[in-house]
């Protein structure tokens, strides 16, 4: 096998967002994750919260091995949907721009927190309105509506438990990928420190960004009201079982070519495509990771 040279470079950027730098335990040395793995991180970042005129993204990827595809896509989704740390000082223009973009992509009705001096109030995101001063974020609070320009949007943050990503698949395999030391952040922390998976969280831990739904069974109580920004189905079984329950979120379906159910998964995706009832002919602008095949479309179902 050819020696893979270590790459030391900048963090990835996807549409202006900083994606985490990830490393894996190579035979001889720790190495940056290879291009195909970075491709999944980028894919997840692009797919999370992907809506167009009320239609959600449906994407499926045929992969030569399921290993890490779903997990890395989830890392990208969580990284893209995690608001940057906003302190009381004046954030930079770039940070404000990214935060405004994140808030703009929220679904109407999403609960947010509005900071005003030392007080924090809960409100709901209504939408974006145009004005002579530029776009304004509209937040509905108790008894009144408030409008925030870009310069003031740092006062708005996502409230409580807002899932960036919901994984569907075999919990034990996810657990090894997410909490193990095989693939880690630049600081050698497991991926779980980025993903903040509810299933692995301690009782006191309220900062949850993602969770795992087993491929079969019933919805756990903690996930019944969840509105994730992206659902990543790791394999056909979970997709077959859950797709009718989660038609309100963008999907990313990972289909392993070596799986006995690969053909069935492809068939289910083709069915979704045939019944998508979309008004958009243009396919979403997503790149397949190297070595994979990607099908993506908008769906109103």
């Amino acid at each position, binding site marked *: *096998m050819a020696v*893979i040279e270590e790459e030391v470079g900048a963090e990835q950027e996807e549409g202006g967002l900083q994606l985490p730098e990830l490393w*894996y*335990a*190579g*035979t001889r040395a720790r190495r940056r*994750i*290879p291009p*195909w*793995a970075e*491709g999944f991180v980028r894919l997840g970042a692009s797919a999370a919260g992907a809506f167009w005129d009320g239609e959600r993204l449906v994407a*499926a990827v*045929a992969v*030569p*091995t*399921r*290993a*890490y595809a779903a997990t890395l896509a989830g890392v990208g989704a969580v990284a893209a949907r995690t608001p940057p740390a906003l302190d009381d000082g004046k954030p930079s223009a770039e940070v404000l721009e990214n935060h405004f973009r994140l808030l703009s992509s929220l679904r109407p009705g999403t609960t947010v927190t509005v900071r005003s001096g030392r007080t924090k109030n809960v409100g709901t995101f209504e939408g974006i309105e145009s004005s002579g001063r530029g776009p304004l974020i509209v937040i509905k609070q108790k008894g009144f509506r408030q409008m925030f320009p870009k310069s003031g949007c740092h006062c708005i943050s996502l409230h409580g438990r807002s899932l960036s990503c919901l994984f569907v698949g*075999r919990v034990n*395999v996810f657990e*090894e*990928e997410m909490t*193990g030391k*095989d*693939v880690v952040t630049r600081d050698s922390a497991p991926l779980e420190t980025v993903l903040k998976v509810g299933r692995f969280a301690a009782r006191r831990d309220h900062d949850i960004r993602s969770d795992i739904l087993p491929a079969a069974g019933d919805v756990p109580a903690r996930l019944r009201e969840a509105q994730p920004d992206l659902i990543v189905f790791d394999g056909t079984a979970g997709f077959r079982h859950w797709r009718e329950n989660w038609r309100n979120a963008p999907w990313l379906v990972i*289909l392993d*070519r*070596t799986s*006995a*159910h*690969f*053909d069935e998964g*492809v068939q289910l*995706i*083709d069915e979704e*495509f045939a019944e998508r009832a979309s008004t958009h002919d243009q*396919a979403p602008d*997503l*790149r*397949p*990771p*190297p*070595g*994979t*095949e*990607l*099908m*993506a*479309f908008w769906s109103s179902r």
Partner: protein
Amino acid sequence: MKFVPLEEAADVYLSGSACQVHRVGVQAAPASAFFERLRDLGRAVSDLREDEYWSGGLGYFRRRRYFIQSTPLTVSDPALELLAYVARAREHFSTCRSLYPEHADGVEQVCDALMDLLMSNIDPLSDAVVDAFAEYKTDRVGVVLPTFGFDKLVQRHLRRRTDSDIDVLTPRDLAMRRPYDVLFVIGRPWWYVGRRWGWVYTAPRASVVVMLGYEDHMREGLPSTRAFSESVTAVAPVHDDAVADPGTSDEGDEAGVDWSFISGEVARRAVGADTADLVEARMYLLAAGCAAFLAASEESRVPTLEPDAPEDGRLVYIQAPEIGPGSIVLLRSEGGGDLIVAVADGILGPAAGPLRAMQEAWKSRLRALVAERGAASVVAELKRHGSIRANRSNLANWCSPRSLRTDDEQDFLAIMRAIELEGQAAQYWKAMAKLESAHRRAGHEIREQLEMQARTADLTALEEEGRADFSLPQGGGALTAFRVEEVSPEIVAVPYQHLGDPFEARA
């Protein structure tokens, strides 16, 4: 599904990024003679395909032909059982001259050609592997077979002949291994594609894939790497060094299995069966010349063994549709009837008899009512008597001996009214509750015993012969673990009593 480190996954992506495919076709006169004679006979009796005399008889030859074409072993190797099957075929066709005189000579020629092949002692597939192996100066070489049960034997054989550590494996094993530098894929592509192993070509586990088989098969095209109807692909094209000609092979049968014999097996089992007893099922060909029908429904779960799993995770119950070639299923081989019923009766002791009599009493009355008035009419009557869930599907389930009582007591009361046992409804409801409790305990006990057996079993016999026997104490009878070799594409209706019963398969 096991954890795969990212470095191993990276190897998979790397091997697929620039895969070269080479084709090596073999020819051997004695083998060609047998294949041609068999093909000629098949064509001559094509109108008699549905006749079990021919489907069963030709099956003896066709299965041997498949093993000859897919297994790099000397043709005289006892594992291929050519001598035994010539004898079986001769015995089967001993009446041919009187029944089908016009085909007797053809049968004789096939038998003779197979004997000639056996006596030739050739080993063309291995010869080709050895020759090709010498060209590649690399340590990591694998050979993939489309069949189960021969991998260890072929591995010993090829390691001896190549004086190397060459690996021989099935696609199931290949998916879990690190990629190879060179991978020999034995046999025609369809044998892999048809078993959902087309990824051997579309997601290759080697930088160099050498397709190796009899000449006709090596002209077959490879499956497309494109999976979806509309997609963007970043999959590197496979560099195939040959132009495929898909029209050269005239074999319509699936890896030597002529599934047309299924209809005979189904008919034999369905004789005298109640319609209410019929369930949808598939036939599974098992190792050691056996077969079994398993329910086709996703609701049905079958105990299977995963020999490579940790000891306390070897027993896995999976949905029947997930069972495929290579799966190891646990079936009742001794004791007859439903295992849970037998163990539950053991738990109930002397109480079992009267309780079973009560179970049979209400069910037989319900079935008689359905037979007399028809399902639709009985459903309507049950609703009039207060049933809230009466419909055809539930009625069929309530008639079946596999169910003990209704989920809701109101439905049970409606049934009791319809079959004129209303006065004893409470007594029957309580009795069926006792049976249900015993069944739950039985299920739990069986699972515990199976898990213990799976933990401690010597699985060598399973690996080498494709079957291993287990026994359950407390009157549970015997179970056998069978490796699944082929799965019928057809769904048929068989009485539920025959599900999971292994039998000898002549094909």
